[in-house]
C-alpha cells in the first residue's frame, strides 16, 4: 500500500525502493558503513585494522548466538533461554577448568545441548508455545546455575580454561581473532546449510506453512527438535567465546545478550513469524549492533543514556527494515 502511495509521488523513488526491497541487505550494509563513518568523523584515527579486528572480536559471541536464534525464528519460534545458556556454559567451563580444559569445554557444550533438547521436546512434541517453553527453561537454567554456583565454588572465583581463553581473545598472526575464524566457519555452515541441504529448506518450509509440510509428509517435529538443539549448542559456544574474550565468568554474563540476539535477527530481516530471511542479514545486524555500542562507548555516554539510545535505535532500525522490505508480517 505504501509502495503504491510513493509511486504516485515519484517514479525514481519507486525504482529505488524496488531495488531495496529485492536486496534489503543493501540498506543494512549502508547503515553499517554510515555508523563506521560517524565513528571515523567524531573520533578521527580510531578506525583502522586493529579497530576492525576488535569490533569483530566483540561481535563474535553475538553473531554466534544470533545464528541459533535465526534458525529458530525461521521455524516461527523464538528462544529466550539463550542468555541463560550462554551464562551457564561459561560458568560451567570456568568452574570445571580445574579438572582439565577439555572436560570443561565438553561439559559446557553439553549444557547447551541438553537445554536445547529440552526446549525442542517441549516445543516440538508437547506443542508448548516457544515463548513460554524457552522462558520457563531460561528460569530453570539460571536457577539451577545459582544453586550449582553455591555448591561448587565456595573457595574463590572460577578460572577460565586456557583453550577457551585462546579461542576467545587470541589472534592468528597477531591480527585475525581466533573467534572471528570460528564465527566465519559457523556462518559458512549455516548459510550454505540453509541454502543447500534438505534440512535447511525444511526449516523455511516449516516456518512458512507447517500444515502444508505435514500434509507433504515432513516430520515437522523432528526438524523443530533439531533446530532447538542446534540453537542451544550455538548459545553454549557463544558463551565460551564470550567468557574467553573477557577472561572471566559470573552469574549474569550472558544477560545483556538477550535483546541483541533477537534484535540482530530482526534487524537482519528474518521475519519473527517464520519462513523468511536468512543468516547473512543477521550477520550484518550483529555487526551493526556491536559498532553501535562501541560508538556509544567512544562518545563516552553515561550508561542509562546508552541503554535508552540502544533500545530506541533497535526499534528505529527494525521499523526502517519493515518499511523498505514491505514486510507487513
Amino acid at each position, binding site marked *: 500500500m505504501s509502495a503504491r502511495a510513493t509511486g504516485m509521488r515519484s517514479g525514481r523513488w519507486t525504482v529505488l525502493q524496488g531495488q531495496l526491497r529485492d536486496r534489503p541487505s543493501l540498506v543494512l550494509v549502508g547503515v553499517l558503513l554510515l555508523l563506521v563513518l560517524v565513528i571515523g568523523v567524531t573520533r578521527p584515527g580510531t578506525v583502522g585494522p586493529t579497530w576492525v579486528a576488535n569490533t569483530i572480536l566483540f561481535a563474535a559471541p553475538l553473531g554466534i548466538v544470533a545464528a541459533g536464534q535465526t534458525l529458530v525464528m525461521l521455524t516461527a519460534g*523464538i528462544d529466550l533461554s539463550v542468555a541463560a545458556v550462554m551464562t551457564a556454559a561459561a560458568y560451567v567451563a570456568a568452574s570445571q577448568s580445574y579438572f582439565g580444559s577439555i572436560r570443561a569445554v565438553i561439559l559446557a557444550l553439553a549444557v547447551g545441548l541438553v537445554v536445547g533438547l529440552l526446549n525442542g521436546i*517441549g516445543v516440538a512434541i*508437547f*506443542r*508448548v*508455545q516457544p*515463548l*513460554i*517453553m524457552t*522462558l*520457563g*527453561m*531460561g*528460569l*530453570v537454567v*539460571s*536457577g*539451577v546455575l*545459582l*544453586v550449582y554456583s*553455591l555448591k561448587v565454588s565456595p573457595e574463590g572465583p572460577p578460572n577460565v580454561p586456557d583453550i577457551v581463553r585462546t579461542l576467545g581473545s587470541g589472534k592468528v598472526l597477531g591480527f585475525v581473532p581466533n573467534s572471528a575464524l570460528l564465527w566465519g566457519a559457523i556462518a559458512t555452515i549455516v548459510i550454505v546449510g540453509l541454502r543447500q541441504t534438505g534440512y535447511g529448506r525444511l526449516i523455511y518450509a516449516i516456518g512458512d506453512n507447517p500444515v502444508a509440510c505435514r500434509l507433504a509428509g515432513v516430520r515437522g517435529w523432528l526438524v523443530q527438535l533439531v533446530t532447538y538443539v542446534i540453537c542451544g549448542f550455538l548459545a553454549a559456544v557463544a558463551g565460551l567465546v564470550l567468557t574467553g574474550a573477557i577472561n572471566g565468568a559470573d552469574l549474569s554474563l550472558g544477560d545483556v545478550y*538477550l*535483546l541483541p540476539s*533477537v*534484535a540482530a535477527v*530482526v534487524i537482519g530481516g528474518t521475519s*519473527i*513469524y517464520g519462513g523468511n530471511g536468512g543468516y547473512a542479514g543477521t550477520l550484518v545486524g550483529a555487526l551493526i549492533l556491536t559498532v553501535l555500542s562501541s560508538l556509544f562507548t567512544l562518545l563516552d555516554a553515561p*550508561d*542509562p*543514556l*546508552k*541503554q*535508552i*539510545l*540502544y*533500545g*530506541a535505535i*533497535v*526499534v528505529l532500525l*527494525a*521499523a526502517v527494515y*519493515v*518499511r523498505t522490505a514491505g514486510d*507487513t*508480517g
Partner: protein
Amino acid sequence: MKAAARVSRRIPVGPGIARFVRRNAWTLGIYGLFVAVMIFTISIHPNYGPYEIESLVVGALPLAFAAAAQACVVIGGGIDLSIGAMMAVANVLAARYMLHHDFQTAVLISLLILVGGILAGSLNGLIAVRTRVPDIVVTLAMSFVWGGVALLILAKPGGGAPDAFMALSSGNLFSPWVPNGLLLLIVVVSLVWVPLRLGRLGLAHYAVGSDRTAAFRRGVRVGPTRVFSYALGGFFAACGGLALMMSTGIGSPLAGTIYTLSGISAIVLGGVSLAGGRGGITGPIVAAFVLTLVPADLILTGTDPNLGQVIQGVLLVLVVMAGGLAPLLRARAIQRRVQAG
C-alpha cells in the same frame, strides 16, 4: 463434513452449570490449585494467621499487578516485555519524589505516576501499531529504554515514602484477616475491569485480540484498540511499581525486571491464551498468589530457597504442557470415536 456433524452431535452443549464449567475449566482449575496450595500451607504451618496472610498479600501485590498488566496486553493480541521496566520507572519515581513528604502529596504523586504509566504504555502501543514491527521486538527494545529511564531517575537503590502510604498495602482497616493490600487490589482492578467488560470497548478489546482481520471487517478500529490495551497494561504496570514501593519501602531501578517474566508465567497459569482474545483478569491474579505461595511453602518444607526460580520455571512449563495435552487427548478420543463409526 458428515463426520464433523456427527461429532458435534455427540458432544452435547449442556446448559447451565456444565457449560459454565467447561468454558471456564482453566480458571476454575487455577482457583482449585490456589485452594490446594493454601490447604497445604496451613497443614505444614499450623498457626497460619493474619500476619502470614498480610505478608503473602504484600509480597504478591506487585506480581498480581504485573500479571494484570500483561493480561490486558495479551488479551488485546499483543505482548509487552517492558512491563517490568515500566514498573521500575514507577517505583523509582515514587521513591525519589515521595521522600520527606506527607500522605496527601504522596497520593498526588502516585496519581501522576499512574497517568505516566498510561502514557508510557500508550507509547509502546503506538510504536508497535505505527511501525508494524512485531510486538515482541518493540517491547523488548522498549524494556531497554524504560530500564535506562529508571536508571536516570535513580542510579542506585534509595528514596522512600511516608509510612501512611506504605500502610495502603501492609496495614489493615477492617479486620486483621483482610489486609489493605487485598482491598486495594480488588478495588483498583474492579474499577477498571468491570466497566470495561460491560462496555463496547471491552468487546472491541477481546475482538481485536482474537482475530484482528475479523474485528476490522466488523468495523472495530483496530489500531486505537491495540494502543488502548497497551495503555491499560501501562496503567497496571505503574500500579505494580507503586505496590513494589509499598512492599520494599525503597526504590530500586533494577527491582522490576523479574516481573516481566513472572508476569508472563502468571498469565499463562491464569488461563490467558498468548494467541490473544481469551482469558480474564482474575485467573492471572490468583495465579500470581500461587506463584508467590509455592516458593514460600517449599522453603518452609526445607527445600533450598535458591531453587525458587527453578520451581517457578518447572511449574510454568508443566502446567502449560498439561494444558496442551488435555485438548490433544480429547481430539484423539473424538477421532477414535469417529473412526469407530
